Each structure stands twice: as C-alpha cells, then as structure tokens.
C-alpha cells in the first residue's frame, strides 16, 4: 500500500532549540493514527508541518504524494486541519463561520450548508438561529471547529487535541465519527492526551518523546515490547515518567 504520509529525516528547530530530531515515518491510507507524547515533545509542530503551515524544516515530507515544502497549496486542498485550542472569530454565528471556511475551500454555499447541518446533527450541536459563537461553551466551540475542518470532505484529516473540552457523550460521538470516516477511506492523524481513547480507537499509535519516535505500531505491538498493560503505563514507561522516579516525595520534608 502506498504511503499517504511520508516523513524522512525530519528536523525542526525554533532558534537554537531543536524540537524534532530526524523523524522517519510512513503512514498508509485509511487508518486512525494516534500521535501521542508528553508536552513539548513536538506533536503540534509535526502536525503543522504536515498541514503545510510550516516550511522551515529540514528533511523530506510528502503528504498525499505532494511535497509540503514545494506544494503546500496542493496539500491544503486535500487535507482538513484543526489546530489545538484554535480560536474562532466568535462574533460570527456557526453558519457564518462555515460560510467563511467553505468559501475559502471553494465550496458552494449549498453544499457547505447541507454538510454542516448533517455534521451538527451527528455531533448533537444545537443553538438558536443567529446565535453567535461567543455565547457557546468550550465544547460547542470545539464541535464547530471539528465541523469546519470536515466541510470539504478531505481525505486526510489532521486533528490536534480534537477531544479537548468535549463532554463524555461528545467524546463518544467524535470517536464514532472518526471511525465512520475511516470506513469511508479517510485517514485520521490526531494527537491526544486522553490515553484511553487513543488506545481504543487508534489503528496505530506513534509515541513521540523529545523530538524522536519512541514507539510506533499497534497498541498490541508496542505493548509486547514494554509489557505495561495499558497505554497510560506504556506512555509513562517510554517517556520516563514512572512513579518510581518520584520515590517517597514529600514537598514539606525540609521544614
């Protein structure tokens, strides 16, 4: 199977601080890829590079056959991207926001409207007519963002912490939605800190630590190496955050 994402020797630094240290990755289409790692590991940076938003890197990155450095527009046409904690122009209503996003993706308004309506129904997002986004809760805003990223029916979807702010029911809905999308041949590449979800829905898990890939495979494959039982333990083991390291910590000990 040909790779939908191909990363070869990817290096990225912000000024003198190296963030990614030579990542190599091949990802086949039609999968849900859970991209996990501790804070500051370089997850969001990788996703921004893959989405064609950051071209200041070393290495070769192709998405759906297009080199992201040379043809970012071709990549952007074919992908959906939802950044982490993304802001929205909140003075707009959801429909107006969809109109903006759909228009920028060159979608007909009628198509945008219909797709948005179906997605809103699926994600159980309801609001009053003409209600602005600035009156929405965090979870509702996150749903608006998710919908806006799917409007143009992209083949490859990058989601940076898509479950942030969602309640338990909404998390279930989004999980189901992601699975349905892969059934339609879409590829989902997402980052999350909710290990239980990552463990359950990901076809493949990639663990990034200190800018390097620490583990790559299905949960079962990775677990065979570390024998941790759960992704949470596995994460702690591979990133060096085990409870043994804390010992008998007492922050009032010197008093």
């Amino acid at each position, binding site marked *: 199977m040909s790779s939908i994402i191909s990363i070869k020797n990817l290096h990225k630094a912000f000024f003198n601080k190296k963030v990614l240290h030579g990542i190599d990755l091949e990802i086949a289409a039609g999968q849900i890829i859970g991209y996990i790692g501790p804070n500051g590991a370089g997850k969001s940076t990788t996703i921004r590079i893959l989405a064609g938003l950051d071209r200041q890197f070393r290495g070769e990155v192709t998405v759906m056959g297009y080199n992201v450095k040379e043809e970012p527009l071709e990549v952007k046409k074919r992908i959906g991207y939802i*950044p982490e904690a993304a*802001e929205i122009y909140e003075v707009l209503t959801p429909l*107006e926001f969809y*109109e*903006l996003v759909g*228009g920028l993706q060159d979608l007909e308004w009628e198509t945008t409207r219909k797709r948005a309506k179906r997605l809103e129904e699926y994600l159980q997002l309801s609001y009053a007519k003409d209600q602005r986004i600035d009156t929405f809760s965090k979870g509702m805003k996150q749903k608006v963002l998710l919908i806006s990223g799917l409007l143009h029916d992209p083949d490859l979807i990058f989601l940076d912490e898509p479950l942030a702010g969602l309640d338990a029911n909404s998390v279930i809905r989004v999980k189901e939605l992601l699975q349905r999308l892969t059934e339609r041949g879409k590829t989902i590449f997402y980052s999350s800190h909710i290990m239980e979800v990552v463990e359950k829905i990901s076809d493949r898990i990639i663990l990034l630590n200190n800018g390097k890939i620490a583990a790559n495979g299905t949960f079962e494959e990775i677990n065979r190496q570390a024998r941790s039982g759960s992704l949470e333990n596995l994460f702690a083991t591979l990133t060096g955050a085990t409870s043994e390291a804390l010992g008998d910590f007492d922050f009032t000990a010197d008093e």
Partner: protein
Amino acid sequence: MIWLVGLANPLWQAFGADPKALRLILATKLKMDDRGGYVMGQQQKPKSGMEKLVFFFMTLFGAFTILFFVKLDHHATAVSLVFSFWVIYIGLLLITELSETLFDARDLYVLLSRPITDVTLSLSRILHIGVFTAKFALCFAVPVGIYLAIWVGPWPLLVFCFLAVVTVVITMTGTLVFYLILLRRVPAQKLKKIIGYFQMLATGLFFILYQLPQFMDSFEGIENFRVSGEWSGFLFPGFWLGGWWSILVEGGATTLSWAQAGLAIFAASAGAWFYVRQSSNYGEKLLELRMAGSGEADAAKGQGSAVSDENNPWYREAISRWFTRRGVERTTFRFTWRVMLRDMSFKQKTYPSMVFLPILLGIIFFRDSFGSNPNGLVFSTNQILMTLYLTAIVIITPLGQAKISEYYRASWIFIATANKETGAFAYGHLLAVLGMFFIPTMVIVAVLVLIVGGLEYIPDIILAIGANLLFTFIFHYLDKHLPFSQNKQAGGFETFGPFLVVSVSATILGFAHYGLRMLPYGLGVWAGALILWISVAVWANFMRREQRIFTEPKTTD
C-alpha cells in the same frame, strides 16, 4: 508608590481590608503593568516611548489650562474650570482605558480561592486605578503648579495640590461607583455591551475635547465669567472645587462658596464610602461577568435570542454582487463586513474617528467662514477641496482597524486553506470597508459639496474620489495583514508607516489638485480624474489576481 499606600494601612484596616494582602496584590498588579502582560486575554506590549508621549501631551493640556488663570479675573472660577477639565478628561480616560482593568476577572480564580475579603479585593482595584490616575493628574498639575509657584505664591500652590487630590478622588469614585452600580443592577451579558458603547461615546467626546484648546483664545468677554460662588457653580463637580479657593486663598467666600466647598468634600468622602460599601460580593459579580458569554447557549436557545445585527443586508448584498466575484473574494467581503458590524474593539476604535471628520469640518467651515467674511457663511474652493480630501480619514481608519482584532489568532483559517490568488482576500476585505464606510460618507460629502459649491465641482468630486481610492490602495498594499489577523496591541512602523505614506501622498495630491484647477476650462481636473480612475481600475484588477504574500499571522504563542 507601595510605600505611600502602606502609610494608610490603619485606614485600610478600618475599612475591613487586609493591608498585607492589599500590598501584595497591588505590587503584583503594578509589576504586571510595567511588563505588559495580558488584559482581557490580550497581550500587552511592555511600556514604551508611547507612554512618555502621552504624558507629554497631557502635560501640554495641563499647560493650556493655565490660560484660565490668565484670562479670568475671578481665580476661583479659573480653579473651577481647571478641575472641571480634569474631571471630564480623567473620567473619560477611566472609561476608555480602565474599564477593562476594573472588570478584569482573570485574577479572581487565584484571589478568590485565597482568604481575601471583598473589601481587600475592591480596594486593591481602586488603588491600582488610583496609581494610574495619579500619573495623569500629575501631568496636568505640574504646569499649573509651576505657574502658581512663580506668579501666585506657595500657599495657593498647596491649596491647589489639596484640591487636585480631592478632584482625583471625586472623579475616580464617581466613575467607579457608577460602574459598580451597573455591575450590581444590570445583567452581566448586557453590561458588557453597555460598557462597550459607553467607551465608544467617551472616545468620541475625547475627539471633541482635543479641539477645545484652540478655542480658548477666541472666547471674548470671558474675563468676567463667574461660576464659583454662583448658583451655576452647583451644576458640575469640577465647579465645586472653586469654593475652596475662595475660602482658603482669595477670602470673601459667599455662602454658596462654602456650600460648594462642602459639597466637594462630601462627594469625595461619600464616593469612597459608597465604593467600599458596594464591594460586598464584588468578586462573585465580576465572575458572573466573566462567565457571561460562555455556557449560555442552551438558555439563549430557549429564549430564541437572535444576536445577529445585520440591519442592511440588501446594501451589503448589492455591493457584494456588483463588485466581487463568487468564491474567496465574496467570502472575505462578507466575513469582513460581519466582523466590522459586531467586533466591539473595532467599533470602539473606528466609530469615534467617524465623529472626528464632521467636527473637523465644522471647525474649518464655520470658524473660518464666519470669522473671515463679513457677509456671513461663504465657502472657498480651499475648504471644499480640503473636505473632499479629509474624507480619506473615513476609509484609512477603518481599513487599518479591520486588520486588527482581539480574535487575531483565529486568522489561522486563512493560512490553513488552499488559496492561490491570495489577492482575493485583500480585495474582498477592501471592498467591505469601502462599502461600509467610504461610499456612504462620500455620497453625503459629494451632495453637500454640490449644494454648497454648485455643479462646477463635479469634476473635483470625481478627481478627489479617485485620489482617495488611490490612497486607500496604497495603504492597503503597504499594510500586508490579513483581515482581523493582527494583535490589537500591535504598533510601530508596521501600522504607522502606511498611515504616514498616505498622509504625505494625500497632501501632495491635494496640492496637485489645486494646481490642476488653475488650468483653463477645467481640463486639468478632468485629465487628472481620468488618469487617477484608470490607475485605480488597473490596480484593482491587479489586486484581485495578485499572489499576495501576507504578513504571517501570529496564531500561536
């Protein structure tokens, strides 16, 4: 400053505040002020030379108020007018600049979870605002103080300093009590809007106030004007201070002077007392304000609240259909239009400047026309041309502001989508600003010019519109920001540079226009208009197809 506040610790304790906590909170807030930090979620720039410039201008305004002492025979009235100016200016400043600080609730999660009383919290706020206000009051006071010290004497200077403190207390507590009453009486969501419009109104008044010093010299018969010690002296808080001047400096105070002096002290004490009294549950109220706008979707849905405010979609749609192509151009047009209608910070920055044009024109027309011509109101070609070219203000200000937003991080959407002809963003954005501000204003100005000057000014109007559009294009080309993609604290040459270029080119083109009028049969003006309109059409066409490189918006920290 902290030390000064510490001197009054017994007083704070008497009010029921914790002096130690008060000092810590105040010290932290002042430290944050010096470093910039965040206000209402917006990154503030560290203090820069701009603050010094503002202080310089305030000192200059303070110097203007010396004219009251020079012009008026009755110094108690001069004092009344000086402090009235303070009350208005500082009051407006508190409304425009400090409303956000007053209602800033970011620290509440930290402070309210600690053992801190409401009184401590509200006192820390008023003291924080007091420090801010004191800086401006000092700027106003220094020139007058120097004048009094040299030409009047040390005792009047001391009295002036005492009255300055009373004025600051009256103004601060007056404004804050008004806001606190609003906070307690008005639902949080509505209050946000009220504050916004109040700020807008205050900024408009500021523009008017800036024009006042130039009239100071033209008042005739002002020497005998009296307000202090008169019945009219009760009309405005600033007037009350003159009573103290009559009692302590000039002597011969009337019963009314005593009453006004008493009223001033009463207002200051009652304001402070009322502020402290109103502070119970202050934190909770502020939190309500912070929460307003989040998690209320279901409630709003139940009430079927429609919050869209597009009052004239037919006009918008007409412009959009006639002048923009479907796709990115029209999308950006409609988006820009909507945000301009709704973004409170955009309105606060833009609408007051719309007041500026009529005021400026009023001054130019009526002062110059009445003053110089014995036959009454006569308009010269100079005035008419100046009017036509000053209309550029109506487009440059909103165009600059339509690149700034408190939601600037949301502009990631423009760079995350695939668009080759990025000039379409610029074109749609520009058209929205032209449609909303320039076209209506230019229609009014053109009709007025035709009424005042007659049909012979038609070519001038056509030429001036072309020139104004050209300035707009230059400004838009030089300021390469995407719509609403720039932090509202942004500044420097990035913003000021294009404005400067346009100001210079507007002046040059204005003079050139005047020169073209010298040519016979109006040929020069017609030829100029033709050239400018062709340039505008070519440029507009180029803009639509341009693969424009915009300034990368800062969408992440």
